[in-house]
């Protein structure tokens, strides 16, 4: 589509502001002013509406397409949560209001949402307290690793390493490195879970923490997780839980009970807030009681009379993780979702997420090589290793699915699976949708054998076909200036 800048016509206007009703008293000295007005497009309101409406139509989305993007939990995002997030009682609330004297009383409703979410998430995960400040999963990881660093610092220990399994999301090693740790990758065993012997070889008193995802990125539950936690704790290392895959285990087990000390959640995955094309997310971090004193400020506390207030007097705190209390409206949507589902709904969520993934696994494992031959949790991982014999790659299968109206699964991740196709159907998809997906995947395999060109040329049904990514990186044309 034409860029909005190219639709600009001099003199055309969309938004009109109220006329100035105060006298103009002074001009800003010229040396402080920009040389010419900012070159934004001059378009009518209709131009704006058509442009963005037509752009939106170029997207696949959960509301329009099956979106089994592994590790991303693209479940249905309930509409009523959008309504509560539009209530002016929240949207108009200035974040500094409760920091003014007597201001706390003016934001009791918002503080209650945060206080309740801390409590609810603690119960769901078996942790003792949460901070809701982190704005996304990786931001939560960063906060979590900072908490780990603060904990060891308080014991006068300088630990150098963080251990990360080779199946981990890239954010894990990246987050740990940013806080100043060196990363040691731990190999997975042939069952796809952490190799305990490899772990033991690297585990010593220089290790600050082990970061794990459970179920892991192969969609497998780490049954030896308590053994791993015991080994870590024996060396004084902490256990970090990446909550990307929490959708598999709601009400089935809790990271806190399994020996994890610090965890982050992705509210935009497990708790159904929309991903927004790459955010805003929300990545709350939960800790065991030994780490509560290090949580970021402010903390929300309850007075004897039941009113809530912000407490900034926490000398051991790691400080500010975000400017205020987190991505509040995202937290609010997740809160509404959890209240609606309740205990039974959350348990059923995990049961059907796991059922749907295993159904896909069962129906495709005769033609696609499963990464591991066993029951999976909320997602299943295949390798296109058989298809590659016909020179068809995971990428080609992914692009063919676009022509079927299906958003492709995650591909080439986890890195330890060759030609990986990582499929997470989520609990909100029906059997008919899964059957259609299974049919399309089987068609992809038939075409691989009979007419691989169709896959190589896919997608053919979109406004554009495969793009030249090398050219994009080389030309670096990243803005119309």
């Amino acid at each position, binding site marked *: 589509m034409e860029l909005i800048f190219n639709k600009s016509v001099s003199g055309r206007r969309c938004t009109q502001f109220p006329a100035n009703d105060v006298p103009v008293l002074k001009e800003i000295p010229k040396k402080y002013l920009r040389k010419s007005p900012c070159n934004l497009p001059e378009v009518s309101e209709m131009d*704006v509406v058509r442009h963005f409406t037509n752009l939106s139509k170029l997207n696949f989305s959960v509301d329009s397409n099956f979106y089994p993007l592994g590790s991303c939990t693209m479940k249905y995002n309930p509409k009523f949560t959008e309504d*509560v997030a539009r209530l002016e009682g929240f949207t108009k609330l*200035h974040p500094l209001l409760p920091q003014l004297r007597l201001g706390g009383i003016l934001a009791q409703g918002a503080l209650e949402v945060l206080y309740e979410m801390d409590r609810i998430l603690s119960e769901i995960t078996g942790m003792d307290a949460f901070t809701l400040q982190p704005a996304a999963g990786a931001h939560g990881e960063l906060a979590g690793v900072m908490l780990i660093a603060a904990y060891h610092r308080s014991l006068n220990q300088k630990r150098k390493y963080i251990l990360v399994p080779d199946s981990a999301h890239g954010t894990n090693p990246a987050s740990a490195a940013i806080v*100043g740790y060196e990363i040691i990758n731990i190999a997975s065993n042939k069952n796809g879970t952490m190799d305990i012997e490899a772990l033991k070889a690297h585990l010593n008193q220089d290790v600050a923490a082990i970061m794990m995802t459970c179920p892991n990125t192969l969609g497998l539950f780490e049954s030896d997780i308590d053994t791993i936690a015991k080994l870590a704790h024996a060396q004084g290392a902490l256990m970090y839980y990446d909550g990307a895959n929490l959708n598999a285990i709601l009400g089935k087990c809790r990271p806190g009970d399994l020996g994890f000390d610090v965890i982050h959640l992705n509210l935009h995955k497990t708790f159904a807030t929309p991903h927004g094309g790459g955010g805003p997310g929300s990545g709350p971090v939960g800790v065991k009681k030994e780490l509560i004193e290090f949580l970021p400020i402010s903390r929300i506390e309850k007075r004897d009379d039941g009113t809530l207030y912000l407490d900034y007097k926490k000398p051991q705190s790691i400080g500010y993780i975000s400017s205020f209390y987190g991505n509040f409206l995202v937290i609010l949507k997740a809160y509404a979702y959890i209240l609606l589902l309740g205990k039974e709904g959350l348990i059923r969520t995990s049961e059907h997420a796991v059922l749907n993934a295993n159904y896909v696994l069962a129906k495709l494992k005769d033609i696609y090589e499963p990464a591991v031959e066993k029951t999976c949790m909320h997602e299943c991982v295949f390798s296109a290793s058989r298809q590659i014999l016909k020179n068809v790659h995971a990428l080609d299968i992914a692009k063919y699915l676009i022509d079927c109206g299906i958003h492709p699964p995650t591909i080439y991740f986890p890195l330890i699976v060759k030609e990986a196709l990582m499929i997470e159907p989520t609990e909100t998809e029906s059997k008919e949708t899964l059957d259609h997906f299974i049919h399309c995947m089987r068609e992809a395999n038939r075409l691989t054998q009979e007419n691989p060109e169709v896959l190589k040329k896919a997608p053919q049904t979109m406004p554009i076909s495969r793009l030249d*990514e090398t050219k994009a990186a080389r030309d670096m044309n990243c803005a119309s200036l």
Partner: protein
Amino acid sequence: MSDFIANTEKDTKEMLEAIGAKTLEDLFSDIREHQKPKSFELVSGKSEFEVIDHIKKLAAKNATNLVCFLGAGYYDHLIPSVVDHLSSRSEFTTAYTPYQPECSQGTLQAIFEYQSSICRLTGLEIANASLYDGGTALYEAMMMARRITGRNRVLVDSAVSPIYRTIIYSYTKNLDIEFLEIPVVHGQTDRNSLRKNLNDQVACVILQNPNFFGAIDDHADIVEDIHRVKALAIESVYPLSLGLLKTPGEMGIDIATGEGQSLGLPLSFGGPYLGFMATKREFARKMPGRIVGQTTDAANRTGYVLTLQAREQHIRREKATSNICSNEALCALRALIYLTALGKNGLLEVARLNYEKAEFAKSLLSKIKGVTVKQSSPTFNEFTVLLPKDPAHVIARMIEKGFAAGFSLERYYKDMKNYMLIAVTEKRTKEEIVRYAESLESALWS
């Protein structure tokens, strides 16, 4: 109770059969008995009507009828209706990060246009797809400058938002970075102190314009000094002010960041907000976050893709330029729609309104007995006043009169007892400003 699960009992039975399992519980056999939850005490589910009702009651406990003169980096601006309507389209909201470009051109082109708008706004050459907020964006800029220069000393103007500074110091406690704060004289960066501390150990100097006290500055002379020692100049900017003010690009700034809340995002009790970042082309490969680039397909049709991904965590893992993954894409879309709806003239107009209304407020407040409006440097839409009484008390009294009156600077600047920060945006009418001045006078003296 609804839980959005489509599978019926019949479906479930058929699917379990296909899997070869008897019950749903069988699928969880890897979780051993002793690993099961020690507790899972949550209330039962409710209908959406009951949940909405409950949350409406919570919303009603928040005071949103105060006329807002409170800013401190987060402002009560007018938002055109199109912003909400278009950004709420679920083709945008329910899509993921655009990893598959052929079916994500809507999001990708919007990000490209957003990046372009941020470049035009800041006068710089390349922008990323967004960061979490203004504070974390500034932290990322500082880390980027360290990577580029290989140096570890950072000079920070003390008129940079104390919230942002606290974020930067919090994030770097475990790293070997030496921070030095540059004092403020007459509301602007102290040039002498800065020059004294600039040397070839310095990675970057962090500035803000307008600064936390609302004062406008032209940092061009400082930037020259900074470049002389081959350090980088970082400036946090208030994007709306760039409708009028000299751009970071015009001052020679190397990395500009800022809080994008003023670009069509409601205050929302602190988030979601939008961190933006723009820089010079030569630093593009050191920049954190997603970047969208233009390219072509085999038929030479133009399209957009995530590019320069070799910087990012999913490829580079512990060697990535940042750990950021999910960012604030939908907020960036809102900012783009806002800037597009305003256009060239609308942005200029709104920036002027902010300046003119604040000047009008200054003129009224300076007439109140005992109130001194600080006039040493020009300001944009926020300014500092010295009150004859403790602002915390005055603010509390003003709440009773229906105003969020401002922010007490002593909270972050211990030596600024009795100083208050007041913001006046385009949203404030003459009547509100007059009433504010009258109320302040009576809060002080009656």
